[in-house]
């Protein structure tokens, strides 16, 4: 019987994947440690530079010095404690015989760790990830779920101390980077006295003008949302994972999704700057900016909703022999019409807010005159505009949340 099969049939298949998985885990641990240490390095350098040299720079030593120090520190950390990467990936260093690990074994493992690049070659031959620093010292990284140790209090773990250090240095560096100046905050409040003096005396003669401008703003939001829905509703079907199958479908899906997420990442104000160059000042560039951003945002919201529809009705209708168009019309659309409406209301709400600030770059509407009044320091006029904006924003917010609650 046996000789009918070729020789390799009875032996086990080489398990490349296990060796690779072990290697991948250790590589991930190392990368996470290096990233954390580099981040800490930069934060500390910035703070050091600020206080020691009064400069604002992240650089201290040459980059290669930093890299060597960071890599060595990461290796030391992995061998002498639970590093942040080990914690994240869920790995622990244990002795394969279950003995207590002596410091000199850790030192040996650290020294041999530098030969890791050579050990990668052995991975190709033996299909097993057993580098020399593990082989010689008989220490290995295993999943932390396989290690039973009494948990230490967090303030005695090196990884949690590192997290605290990272948070602290981030806080300090953030305060330095953003030029936090508490002295200015508390001693210069009188500089705004003129503003508050005018704010409490609004110039009500501008109410009529304000209402007219406010209507322009609301219409901007309305038109942008309406056009946005008209474009986004069909696009969302192309951006839903479950409706775009096959090579062509997937390509279209990817293109639409990537474009939309890029467009969405650019604030409407920046779009308005571009459109002001294109179609000149006025409300029109504002509408276009809001429209472009709404299309991208609504497509994302809509298609996420489409991806979570119940496949039952769709299959039932498909089983009756309906074509693709009919499936969408009778199986998909009834499920999404209410969420679509509620997303649209939500977006209109956002667009009204956005339309009020888009005026700053020349997008027209009430925002434009508001910012002009603040530029000429006419705060009593600006207050009227601000109050009108507050009223309309509050009204829209209230109405749309009530309607959305009803739509479910």
């Amino acid at each position, binding site marked *: 019987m046996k000789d009918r099969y070729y020789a390799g049939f009875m032996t086990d298949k080489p398990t490349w994947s296990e060796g690779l998985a072990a290697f991948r885990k250790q590589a991930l641990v190392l990368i996470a440690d290096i990233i954390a240490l580099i981040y800490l390095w930069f934060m500390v350098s910035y703070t050091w530079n600020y206080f020691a040299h009064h400069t604002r720079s992240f650089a201290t030593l040459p980059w290669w010095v930093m890299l060597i120090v960071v890599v060595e520190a990461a290796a030391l950390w992995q061998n002498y404690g639970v590093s942040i990467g080990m914690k994240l990936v869920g790995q622990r260093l244990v002795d394969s015989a279950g003995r207590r690990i002596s410091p000199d074994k850790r030192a040996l493992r650290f020294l041999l760790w530098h030969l890791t690049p050579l050990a990668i070659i052995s991975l190709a031959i033996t299909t097993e990830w057993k580098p020399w620093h593990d082989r010689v010292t008989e220490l290995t990284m295993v999943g932390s779920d396989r290690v039973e140790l009494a948990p230490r209090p967090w303030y005695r773990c090196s990884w949690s101390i590192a997290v605290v250090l990272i948070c602290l240095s981030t806080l300090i560096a953030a305060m330095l980077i953003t030029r*936090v100046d508490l002295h200015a*905050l508390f001693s210069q409040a009188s500089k705004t006295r003129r503003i508050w003096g005018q704010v409490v005396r609004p110039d009500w003669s501008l109410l009529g003008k304000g209402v007219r401008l406010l209507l322009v703003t609301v219409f901007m939001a*309305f038109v942008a949302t309406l056009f946005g829905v008209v474009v986004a509703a069909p696009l969302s079907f192309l951006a839903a994972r479950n409706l775009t199958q096959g090579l062509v479908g997937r390509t279209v899906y990817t293109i639409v999704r990537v474009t939309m*997420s890029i467009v969405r990442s650019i604030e409407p104000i*920046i779009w308005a700057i571009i459109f002001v160059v294109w179609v000149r000042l006025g409300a029109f560039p504002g509408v276009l900016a809001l429209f472009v951003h709404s299309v991208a945002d609504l497509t994302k919201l809509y298609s996420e909703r489409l991806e979570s529809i119940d496949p039952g009705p769709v299959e039932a209708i498909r089983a009756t022999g309906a074509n693709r168009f009919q499936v969408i019309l009778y199986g998909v659309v009834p499920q999404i019409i209410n969420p679509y409406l509620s997303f649209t209301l939500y977006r209109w709400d956002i667009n009204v807010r956005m339309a*009020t*600030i888009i005026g700053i770059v020349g997008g027209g509407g009430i925002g434009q005159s508001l910012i002009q009044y603040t530029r000429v320091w006419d705060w009593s006029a600006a207050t009227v505009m601000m109050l009108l904006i*507050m009223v309309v924003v509050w009204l829209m917010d209230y109405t749309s949340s009530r309607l959305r609650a009803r739509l479910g």
Partner: protein
Amino acid sequence: MAKRPRKSRSAKPDTFLQRVAALKPRLYAFLLDWGSWGYIAYCFMYLLNRYWYVRHVNFYGTLAVPAWAWPIVVVGTLELAVLSHAFGHSVGLSLFGLKLFGPDYRASSWQVRLRRYLWWHLALPLQALSLRKAHPKGLLVHDVRSESRMLVVADIQEELPVVKPRKWYLTHRGLMTVALIGLTFWLGWMTTQINLGTLFGRASKSAYLWKALVTPDFEHFVTPDPQLRDSIMGGILESIYMALLATLLGGVIAFPLSFLGARNIMGFSRAGWLVFSLTRGFFNIFRSIESILWAVVFAVWVGFGPFAGVLALTLHTIAALGKLYSEQVESIDPGPLEAIAATGARRWQVVLYGVIPQIVPSYLAFTLYRWDINVRMSTVIALVGGGGIGRILFYYKNEVGRLSNAWNQVGAVIVVIVAVVWFLDYISGRIREKIT
């Protein structure tokens, strides 16, 4: 009128307040219809101006309603609203689920409707004279006199005869809806000066802009611009840290405030109500003023720079997060609270052991979401002196005349913003998915 017992609240009000409450949907429906007729009147005036007055009478002028005509407008729209209530199924009625019925839930004849319309004019004064002695079923004078009733459709759904509904274009509410949307669209198109000719005509002129934007110039990505004394890298870091600090500070301040703004924590005593409304009022007012406007004030206060931006973002974050947080507190499960209160715990102990464990995951999710928004906002807050990457963006944008590659530099800044915003959006989305 069929004498069947009905369960609905609107059918048998016993106290005065309940009687008034039963009239509330009717009032809202009426106000909505009045408002929509007023809106149509406004649109009419606008179009009259645009197509007649400005073209043929006075190019620079605006036709305004004279003072003596205002009562006519008010009364006219009022009459139209009443007519649409009496003779058709208006938008307001259908939105609030009301319908006019004759005896036995049949449609009323036009005589009944006319009588109803005419009696309506006397209903309010008569009702005002004797509101406390109003009809025991909460009916108004014109209801009684015309023998027709305005009923909530949902209450009597089972008893209604099955009638084929009319086509939407034959109903009052269908036509009205189309008119409202169409007029809004028409006016919107004109007031926002939409001009497709410009859009497409100038497309070739903006081609250079797109060409420059898609060929970004990363010359000053790390090397600081000598004029600006800052690099794109420095700018984006400034933005991220502004958002981080603002979110942290805002979250820390909003956390205790959110309990003061939660109905179920503050209880229903007078003092509790006062604190609740003050906190919620603060949230609502400060939330509706965009952070970019706060940046204008803070730029005066602490000087131009990222700190002004941080303060502006913080203020807006407190209000926005405070509202989200306190809504979350209001929607917690009361079970654990009662269990802890039953052990004789004090109020702060109830909050500490009953409320906080329930809200921590969603608080984290909201905070991450807010950080996302703050990063987006901090990219543009420099427009009014708030600091961040926007400073670099607007600097290059304003140098368009002087620098030949200004738009390419703007393109580079936009690429960096997109990359960072997209990355943070993705990360925070993943984390939020895991938390909730």
